[in-house]
């Protein structure tokens, strides 16, 4: 008897749910996921990017998807610090910016004790975002020149110096 009543209650709720027209979320999870796992430099859906930048709820969903597949991520400021941040930890990884001398571009160094190493970095600051390919590690470290002549690399350098920058290592 008790299971009979339970089954009827479950059926009643199922029938009501099929009738209910809940509002579907936009953009879809599938579209956000495809965006989250895209290769750097791959063409992106501009409307989707705009939605992520302008709609806080879409941004939250996107970062949830991004964070879940990241090797490591620091969704908000990793360290409370005054002024520019030149070194921060993201999970088991350490990121350091070495200022270039004699006109050489600054260098981003990513070290981590564990394999696998990330292949992509994505940084968020406010509604600005940048995603770059990290290249292959050499002796346990990844080196990336933050060349001022390459707009995305320069932007990444500026963002990483801000403690409020969120970092995802993918």
């Amino acid at each position, binding site marked *: 008897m008790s*299971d009979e009543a339970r089954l009827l209650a479950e059926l009643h*709720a199922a*029938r009501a*749910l099929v*009738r209910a027209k809940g509002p579907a*979320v936009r953009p879809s999870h599938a579209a956000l*996921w495809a965006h989250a796992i895209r290769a750097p430099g791959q063409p992106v859906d501009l409307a989707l990017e705009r939605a992520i930048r302008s709609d806080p709820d879409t941004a939250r969903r996107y970062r949830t998807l991004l964070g879940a597949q990241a090797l490591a991520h620091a969704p908000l400021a990793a360290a409370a610090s005054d002024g520019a941040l030149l070194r921060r930890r993201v999970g088991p990884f350490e990121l350091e910016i070495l200022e270039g001398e004699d006109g050489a571009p600054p260098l981003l160094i990513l070290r981590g004790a564990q394999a696998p190493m990330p292949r992509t970095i994505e940084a968020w600051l406010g509604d600005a975002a940048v995603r770059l390919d990290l290249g292959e590690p050499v002796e346990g470290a990844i080196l990336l020149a933050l060349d001022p002549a390459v707009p995305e690399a320069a932007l990444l350098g500026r963002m990483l110096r801000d403690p409020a920058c969120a970092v995802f290592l993918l």
Partner: protein
Amino acid sequence: MAGLGITIRRIEESQGVARSPGTGRRMTGGYDERCAADLAGVGEGRDLSRADRAWLARVVTGAVRPNRDKPLWDLAHALAALARAGGARDGRALVSLALDPGLATPAAVEARFAGNAATDARGLVLDGGWRTGWSGLARLLALAEFVLTAEDLAQFATVTGWLDELAASPDAEGAAFLAKRLARQSAAYRNAHLPLAPLERRFRAILVFLAGRRAFGDDDILAFWREEMRGGERPGFRTVAEHFVTFEAGAHLLDGLEGLASAASLAAADGWEERLDASLADLTAAEPAEALAALLAAWPDGPKILTGAEREDLADFLRLEPFHRTRPLTTLRAASFGRVQSGIANRLRRGGGGADLAERAACTEAETYADLQARAGALAAHLARMLRIAAALAIAERDGLSPQTQAALEAAEADLRRVRRAGFEDRAALTAGFAAAASALLRLAEEAGRLERALAALDRQRPLEAAFAADRAVFAEALTAAYAGEAA
């Protein structure tokens, strides 16, 4: 005022209205808005058929026997097989498969995976033991999307982590472990978003009332409602009628429920799957036609084929589908006295009371069955007329038609010229508007016609005037007794 709050809570609880613990929002029908949105996200995103949506809703609410966790067990094994076949190194690849809207149908799934290492001619296999067909796999991927995206992605990272672990050891053992985790997660989801306990209490009361009977009549519904009213539960008459709609759809499942749990042969379980699906059949059989209530709710903008008031009237008559065809007396009772009772409940909710409440409870304002019959007839006639106009608009080339058909179309044209409604002036826009509404119009016209015929048959068997007078005495007595405390 605190007393009033408690009164409202009591009314709502008795009507199966619970509140979501997180948001405090009211939840009716045994689910909350979060659950409806989670399911809609998967259903819309994958453009699922109504049958697949119904299956998914059933799995989420737990209406699966003998073991409500069986679909999660199947899902875990399917993911293990896919991880092994695809050589997935981490959970990401599995997430990509689960979220891919291109894998929503059996054909698409077969095209993607057939010939793959983990498949045979009929579907997916794990270790030669567990298996599922292509249509089963398509449904399981929809379920995978649901468990990943549920609670607006609150569990996404956790579940992705579990899939990482599964990908590291994609065998029967890993699958069984994942199945356990998913079962726990889904039980927690039901606790948070599916307040089934009040519904379960109501159905238990119906089972006790019917004392083993599976068949019931209009007067059983009324007697049960009166008993609940006397017991202080004070459920809405319409709500009770809705519960009887589900009872009727599910009653054939109840015999042998215990036997199923103990015998649990695979063949028996398979038969149950079909019977459970069939109990949702009035929502799914007419696919792609929708439930009548959904049809009315989603009525397209455009020419005023139906006014807002007409849509509301139709929704009122048809909301107890299929009772408008099979139990016209309950349909009339809900439309007449159910509305009186909702008025009382609303008035209490707003904080009113006093003399007006006593007056309402006396049912002096209740709409008579004869008036309701006339209104149903007018609606049926209006829909039939709109249907003829739709035909006239759709058929421009009439030379080859029989003289009778041509005459009928001419009559419809004349009718069209007499209609004074918004959007009926511009023929091109009107034609497009009617074309967009054609299938919904056809279905509604059909159902309104069936209601009209059911009411006519009822009138012959149990004259409506006398039936209304008798019912008014019964409802007035029950409502007055139940709400006397508030009216004083």
